[in-house]
């Protein structure tokens, strides 16, 4: 890896993953206080996908996402304070406390809103790429979704349209192997059919979603193709949802998967494995890593303080924002 990427890029990728990881852990640690009164869907173990893809995006490129969207939001440059404030349902939240954890937005960072209807963001992200194409902008649209959404008909419909119009859209399929407690193997045989699409119509790849370098390299190719006007891509990132579908902590006690299985994937955590790699190849020192952690923790402390001190929306504001309001 040393040969390919400059040290500061590697460290930047690690920093972004670690930041998402530690934000998740803090949310999880404080969730039992019942002050974040919104369902949470943690992306622990899936950090490499959001970071490896968003590393190639400009601020005005678009992303669309789902209920499990903290990682995408942060990787794209969404405001951390506004994220935490949203979890506390505050007026200062990214969605002013109207959306909660599943409905994040930061238009200034190109994050145009996440849907908690599984697959719901797929056509919308495709439509953003249609707007780019019609306006002849130098932008791309990235759509993040998981294996539950890959079951949905909108994925086929959207891909068909993206191919038809040769749109600058990149479908990032985070196969984390579960939809709630239903394993992907009970819902499908073999790989999704989209991989058999001829590459002149749509570039498709399967990558190890826990390898930041693999995701980074393939995402770069896909995004470059979109920028060159070569049409859509479909990248499947094989990964694993380490935590339960929603809420904090392990859900191994439910019995739909074994402790051993979870342990295997915890050992493959993209953040931990990349940390070891960086140390092993002497790209960074333990001391610098510790400082990095401190810096991130400070930022997280501040974000939580900001959220906890922020005002809640007033009852009199209930009807606001149903329709567009001039700002």
């Amino acid at each position: 890896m040393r040969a390919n990427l400059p040290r500061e890029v590697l460290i930047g990728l690690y920093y972004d993953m670690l930041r998402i990881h530690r934000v998740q852990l803090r949310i999880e640690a404080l969730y039992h206080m019942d002050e974040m009164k919104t369902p949470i869907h943690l992306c622990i173990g899936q950090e490499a996908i959001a970071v490896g893809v968003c590393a190639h995006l400009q601020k005005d490129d678009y992303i669309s996402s789902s209920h499990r969207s903290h990682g995408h939001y942060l990787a794209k440059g969404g405001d951390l304070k506004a994220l935490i404030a949203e979890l506390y349902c505050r007026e200062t939240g990214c969605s002013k406390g109207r959306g909660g954890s599943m409905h994040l937005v930061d238009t200034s960072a190109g994050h145009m809103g996440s849907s908690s209807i599984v697959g719901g963001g797929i056509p919308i992200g495709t439509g953003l790429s249609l707007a780019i194409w019609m306006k002849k902008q130098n932008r791309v649209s990235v759509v993040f979704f998981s294996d539950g959404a890959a079951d949905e008909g909108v994925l086929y419909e959207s891909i068909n349209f993206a191919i038809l119009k040769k749109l600058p859209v990149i479908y990032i399929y985070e196969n984390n192997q579960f939809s709630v407690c239903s394993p992907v193997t009970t819902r499908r045989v073999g790989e999704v059919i989209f991989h058999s699409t001829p590459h002149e119509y749509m570039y498709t790849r399967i990558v190890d979603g826990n390898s930041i370098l693999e995701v980074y390299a393939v995402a770069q190719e896909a995004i470059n193709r979109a920028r060159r006007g070569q049409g859509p891509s479909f990248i499947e990132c094989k990964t694993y949802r380490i935590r339960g579908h929603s809420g904090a902590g392990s859900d191994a006690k439910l019995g739909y998967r074994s402790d051993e299985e979870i342990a295997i994937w915890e050992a493959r955590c993209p953040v931990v494995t990349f940390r070891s790699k960086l140390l092993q190849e002497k790209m960074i020192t333990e001391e610098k890593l510790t400082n990095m952690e401190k810096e991130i923790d400070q930022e997280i402390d501040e974000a939580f303080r900001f959220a906890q001190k922020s005002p809640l929306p007033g009852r009199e504001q209930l009807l606001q924002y149903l329709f567009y309001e001039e700002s």
Partner: protein
Amino acid sequence: MPWSKIKPELNEPNFQRESEENSRRLSYAEAIREALDQALDMDSNVFVMGQGVDDPTGMFGATLNLHKKYGGERVFDTPLAENSLTGIAIGAAIGGMRPVYFHNRPDFLYLAMDQLVNHASKWSYMFGGAVHVPLVVWACIGRGWGSAAQHSQALQGIFMHIPGLKLVMPSTCYDAKGLMLSAIADENPVIIIEHRFNFRHKGFVPLAPYRVPLGKGIIRRPGRDITIVAVSFMVTEAFQAAEELVRDGIEAEVIDLRTLRPLDEEIILTSLAKTGRVVVADTGWKTGGATAEISALIAEKGFVSLKAPVLRVASPDVPTPAGYTLEEAFYKGWKEIVTSAHELLKGKG
């Protein structure tokens, strides 16, 4: 389909507008087409999509040949994937475009309910106003010649239930153009539900672009004895009913709501205060539909003005039958409005 056998082409009731400058008689389809033409011309972000918008019939003529003038990038045929194409239109709208998505029949909007209801209607509220969706979705209710259960549904009651959607139901050629231009200019998702029978009409339409405001009804015919509240093709039926009632010395006031969301409550309640008697007429089903909502409004806010119960003229709660004897029994119109009016005025003296 030989629509001419069901309903001959004719001029719409003499509502208005002959005196307007540069006004000329256009067909209903031509009026919509002119609105689209002007919107496409005025704003390069406007585009028209839908299955068949660039075909030789041009969506009953409403989009005819617009693709030739504005190109296939701005007026384009779509795959038959109503839900995703609705989401794609939403995404394009969020990305700064102003899509107008045409559907042949509202029945197919059921396939797009996830994107219309879960997404378009909620995007502004759910994100605290950070994003908005300037989207127009258009569909035309079918009727007659055995269109049957899946090609003639009037779904306004269902969409009227959804916060975050605006719901437009024009009744005249003038409004078809002016409401379309307002819908396209609106920053929110707007559903326009047309009626096939209105497409048999011709009416006076000014050449220059103009907007008919959303949420403002209009009195099509003033009257003192009874109020008939109607939308879409039912306005024509109500107008005819009013002319019949004149023979019996009854002066009916005909209100065309133009939009069901926002609903012009004031025009209904003001008329009710004058007449004290109301018939509500709609092309949709009775239970839980537009007539139910309007009747509830009258009960809540206009009870003191009521001299008689509210009566409703709406479709019976069954799917539309294909056979013409049953079809005739299914559809309600001016005759039922006249009967209802007489019932409300019974014993008045």
